[in-house]
């Protein structure tokens, strides 16, 4: 008949017993052959598993997907309130009436009321954050439009204007090929003071563009021009982002 203390011996092996209980088990082990054998079997089995069995680690793509899922979930959490608030402030600014704000109003026109959790906002934000974190801000470094624009022609599906607006405070840093919502996008990168602004452009496909938005401290402006959809993102203030959007609009021509 097997010893009734085997579970106790296992507890001892697993470090689940306090000092005095451990001493009791050790005393028992001196006289019980069953439990002494069990203890050495337990040690052997543990060693076998820890030395030979595969430990499956989460690989880098899975880790990236998870942090992106969390980012997206986090961004969607504030829900409709933020969007509405941003739009109302935006509209009241546009209503103050000047040539410049007429342009801003044009931007609003393009920004048809979106589903509140438009995946585009999350995607543009993720692409922006990726570019800031991964040392992959630009593929082609240049403040020369004659360098950046032809580079796009060879590396992306679209070729948006890449104009340096250094005089207006927006220095052209370079260009990058990226993806937004699964579509290939050309990105024109600007520096405005300490801030980086990514201006994404992709071939329009009829999808409703989100309203300009604010999420997690980042600002977003979307607009449509010709056969391109644009999305600008940065941690600048909203007005600074709008100013650049207007400059890009103007440079793209009517």
């Amino acid at each position, binding site marked *: 008949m097997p010893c009734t203390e085997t*579970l106790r011996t296992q507890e001892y092996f697993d470090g689940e017993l306090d000092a005095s209980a451990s001493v009791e088990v050790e005393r028992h082990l001196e006289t019980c052959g069953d439990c002494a054998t069990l203890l050495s079997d337990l040690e052997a089995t543990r060693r076998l598993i820890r030395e030979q069995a595969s430990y499956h680690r989460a690989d880098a793509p899975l880790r990236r997907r998870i942090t992106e*899922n969390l980012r997206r979930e986090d961004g969607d959490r504030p829900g409709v309130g933020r969007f509405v608030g941003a739009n109302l402030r935006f509209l009241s600014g546009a209503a103050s009436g000047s040539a410049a704000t007429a342009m801003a109003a044009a931007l609003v026109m393009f920004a048809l009321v979106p589903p509140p959790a438009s995946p585009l906002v999350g995607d543009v934000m993720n692409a922006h954050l990726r570019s800031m974190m991964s040392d992959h801000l630009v593929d082609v470094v240049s403040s020369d439009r004659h360098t950046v624009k032809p580079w796009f022609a060879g590396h992306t599906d679209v070729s948006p204007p890449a104009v340096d607006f250094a005089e207006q405070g927006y220095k052209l840093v370079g260009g990058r090929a990226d993806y937004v919502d699964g579509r290939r996008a050309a990105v024109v990168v600007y520096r405005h003071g300490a801030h980086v602004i990514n201006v994404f452009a992709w071939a329009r496909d009829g999808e409703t563009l989100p309203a300009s938005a604010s999420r997690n401290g980042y600002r977003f402006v979307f607009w449509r021009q010709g056969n391109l959809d644009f999305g600008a993102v940065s941690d600048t203030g909203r007005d600074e982002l709008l100013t650049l959007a207007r400059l890009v609009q103007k440079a793209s021509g009517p």
Partner: protein
Amino acid sequence: MSDRRRRFEAQALPHLDAAYNLARRLARPPLDADDIVQEAMLRAFRAFDTFRGDNMKPWLLSIVRNCHLTAFGRTRAKLEAPLPADAELNLGDRGLIVDDPDPEASVIHTQQGRQLNAIIDRLPAEFREVLVLREMEDMSYRDIAQVTGAPIGTVMSRLARARALLRQGWIGAGQEAPHAVH
């Protein structure tokens, strides 16, 4: 990044390997450990406000386990439905690819390691999970009880059974009895 997400990532991401290893040891095709872990992390993040304490590992692993059970229940429900025509069967990449796409596959496993993995994976799930949590994750009985929802006494008896079955399987596979080093 919101403060809530920052806190969640700081506490949860260190246990991502443990979550994935458990999911890999629990999931059987067509279930996919990647999907289970992604779902579990999202659920955990949504429920983060209900988490109390300073050790997130058992809480997180219990969510992984529940996600697996939910997914498992779904596939069983599907299996009981009439079989779709061949054309509708979603064989996916996994159904067609014979080789394990896991990067670990590139690491040459010893014959012994493969055999041991197979023996572990053939253990009934309730034994397999306590074995993985104790021997691979080094978790206490109390934490294992939290993950599995079983009382500590049950954890102890399942663990004893799992170890005995593993040892039998190992010897039955013609391997030399594992021996301790002293």
